[in-house]
């Protein structure tokens, strides 16, 4: 069986996720195709989807326009694995507020039972890299790249916390949903993408 993995390509760092996913498939020796997807028809055929980093307000609004947001929601509710990165995590969340502006009115998938704070660590000058750990998914050391990153303030009872930085939650899993506030696709370490592929398989 060959896996059909899509990177949602409305806006954001799509190519980096294509490259990381392809490298991860190679390392695992698993057959699969990785492609960019924008439309409901393309999304309907997928076994797994990555919602990449970018601007969550932009991605949300544009995916509402062509019906892809609705299709993604249906597929995830039917069990398709999804990895949401930064903006992708924000889209998945049930509740979002901004660190400075407060409550935001933006389209959300309303699936991941977390409360997210946007721009939680400050503006771009405060973006940072740090070594992080995800023991529960057997990735003891990983380079966390946090770019105007959100953080998770509260998690529901069905959400497993995978990693924390100081008091802030930075990676979570809820059944078929994997989400991080940092950017694994900007590093050369593909362990996070490998973990996601194993969720699809």
């Amino acid at each position, binding site marked *: 069986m060959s896996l059909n993995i899509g990177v949602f390509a409305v806006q954001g760092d799509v190519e980096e996720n294509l490259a990381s996913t392809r490298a991860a498939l190679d390392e695992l020796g698993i057959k699969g195709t990785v492609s960019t997807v924008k439309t409901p028809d393309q999304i309907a055929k997928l076994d797994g989807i990555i919602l990449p980093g970018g601007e969550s307000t*932009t991605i949300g609004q544009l995916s509402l326009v062509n019906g892809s947001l609705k299709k993604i929601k249906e597929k995830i509710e039917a069990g398709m694995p999804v990895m949401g990165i930064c903006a992708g995590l924000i889209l998945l969340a049930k509740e979002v507020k901004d660190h400075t502006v407060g409550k935001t009115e933006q389209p959300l998938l309303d699936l991941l039972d977390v409360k997210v704070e946007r721009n939680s660590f400050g503006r771009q000058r405060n973006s940072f890299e740090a070594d992080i750990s995800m023991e529960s998914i057997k990735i003891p050391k990983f380079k966390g790249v946090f770019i105007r990153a959100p953080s998770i303030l509260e998690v529901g009872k069905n959400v497993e916390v995978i990693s924390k930085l100081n008091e802030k939650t930075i990676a979570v899993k809820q059944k078929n949903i994997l989400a991080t506030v940092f950017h694994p696709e900007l590093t050369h370490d593909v362990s996070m993408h490998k973990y996601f592929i194993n969720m699809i398989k």
Partner: protein
Amino acid sequence: MIPLSGDIPNAKGVVHENLESKPISRGTSTLKRGFAHMLKNGVVMDVTTVEQAQIAEEAGAVSVMVLDKLPSDVRKAGGVARTASIRVIQDIMDAVTIPVMAKCRIGHVYEAKVLEEADVDMIDESEVLTPADENHHIWKWDFTTPFVNGARSLAEALRRVEEGAAMIRTKGEPGTGNVAEAVIHIKKLNDELRTIKSIYDSKDNQDLVKMAREFKVSYDLVEETARIGRLPVVNFAAGGISTPADAAYLMSLGCDGIFVGSGIFKAEDAKERARAVVLATTFWEDADKVMEAQKMIDERHSILGLDVHNLELRMQERGSTA
């Protein structure tokens, strides 16, 4: 996985410190260039007020660029164009959730420092403002905040990357409502990239050395760029973009995204146009969607536009020789 060609890992702008007790690094090339990657396939809009910034955000812009005057007004006003008021920039930062950029004059190290202290997300060292140093651009490795620079050719683009730019945009001819120059610049850059890639593939190092001398940049940066066959940083189109079709056309030429200057807020249908340009940038591959976007605007409301051959001031030439 992003290219880090030309990176200076121990540059002054890289800060090692603790977040509570956790050791962290700020201002690395991964963070600066990575920030620009998050903007890809998006539209950055020039704004002068909080109200315009909110219209931009609601329209789906990925970022706003704060100016004192829009480029076409800079052109009309003449005199010296400087960085925008810090209070206006900070009011905008408090009002929108998307990143906020601002322009400083070419070579003006202290306008850049002021913008960094004000916490803007990216600094545009821009030819739209009056250059402060005709011979030097800012040494951007000294900053933790990322920079974007304009370029008209591969040589200019690589010189800016070597100085630490985390993102490149075409210069075009700002404030004209005329996209012709931006088209020339991106096509020239693409041609030159194809040329050095073919030299690299032919394994003729001597010709690459010759290119590096001509470009006035290090051999390593030319070789690395030739190997990957594209700029090692994100590359947007800018200068004269006024309509959804303009934006879609430049995306089709291989740009990673779009800057719109006077094109939106000098038009009489700014709100609809902002939305339409975003839609055309996202769905540029579908001509029918671009048509739908173009239908949202009225050509009678577009910025009048200028013939680029009869300009008294060619902003694009500022800083090109350095």
